[in-house]
C-alpha cells in the first residue's frame, strides 16, 4: 500500500540530535521510495537557515542532509509562516536549492491531510 507521509521537523538544528536523526529517517524513507513531504515548524525553521557554522561547536553541518532532500525526490518543503515570523525570519532567508518552499498559514490543516505523520 502506497501512502503519503508528512514528516514534522520541529527541532532546532544543533541543540539536540533530533533534527539530524529526523532528516536521516526522512532520507531513509525516501530511499525506500516512500512519498514523503516535510513541514518545518517551531524551532525547526532554524534548520533552513544558510550560512551556519556549527564547526565552531564541534558539530557537523545539517546543510548537507537538507541539500540531499531534492536528490532523494523530496522537492516539496512546507514551512509554517507563523513560526518564521515569531523568530524574526523572512522567507528569503530559508532557501534550499532544488526544493520548492511553500509557506503554510494553517499547519494543522496540512497535517490533517496526511494519513501518516512522523514527528521529529
Amino acid at each position, binding site marked *: 500500500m502506497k501512502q503519503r507521509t508528512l514528516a514534522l521537523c*520541529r527541532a532546532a538544528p544543533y541543540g539536540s540530535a*533530533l533534527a539530524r536523526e529526523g532528516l*536521516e529517517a526522512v532520507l531513509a524513507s525516501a530511499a525506500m521510495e516512500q512519498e514523503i513531504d516535510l513541514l518545518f515548524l517551531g524551532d525547526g525553521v532554524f534548520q533552513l537557515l544558510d550560512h551556519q557554522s556549527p564547526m565552531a561547536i564541534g558539530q557537523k553541518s545539517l546543510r548537507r542532509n537538507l541539500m540531499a532532500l531534492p536528490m532523494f525526490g523530496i522537492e516539496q518543503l512546507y514551512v509554517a509562516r507563523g513560526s518564521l515570523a515569531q523568530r524574526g525570519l523572512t522567507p528569503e532567508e530559508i532557501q534550499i536549492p532544488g526544493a520548492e518552499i511553500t509557506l503554510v498559514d494553517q499547519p494543522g490543516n496540512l497535517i490533517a491531510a496526511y494519513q501518516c505523520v512522523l*514527528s521529529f
Partner: protein
Amino acid sequence: MKFSLAVYAAPHSSQSAASALRFARALLAEGHEIYRIFFYCDGVQNANSIAAPPQDETDLTGQWQALQREHSLDLVVCIAAAQRRGVLNQREAERLEKPSANLAEGFELAGLGQLTDAVANSERLVTFGGTQ
C-alpha cells in the same frame, strides 16, 4: 487495529519511554495488534542491558523484555542511533572493536528502513519522546 510505536526517549530521563511501555500494554489488553516498536534517537537506551537503576525504580528494559516474551513483539533498535550511543550486539561490538556488547535480549538492531516499513504496514504510528 494494527499499531506501531516509535520511541525516541531514554528511560530515567523523561516519562516518555515509560508512557510508551504503558501504552503498548494498554493496546494489547484491548486486543489491538502491535506490528513493531521502533527505538530511535535516545530511545535506543531502552535496549541497554547494562543500565542498572536502583531497585526501587522501574527497570524499563526488563519490562520491555517481559512484554516481548509474552507477546512475541518485534522490538527494533535503529543500528545507526545505537552505535552513536553505545548500544551494540556481539557482532557490532566485534566489528567496531569495542570491549563489550550490551544489546538486551529480545531487541534487534536494524536499519531505519524498519521504521519506514512500520509506517507502511500499520494503521497507526504513535511517537513517544522528542521535541518538548
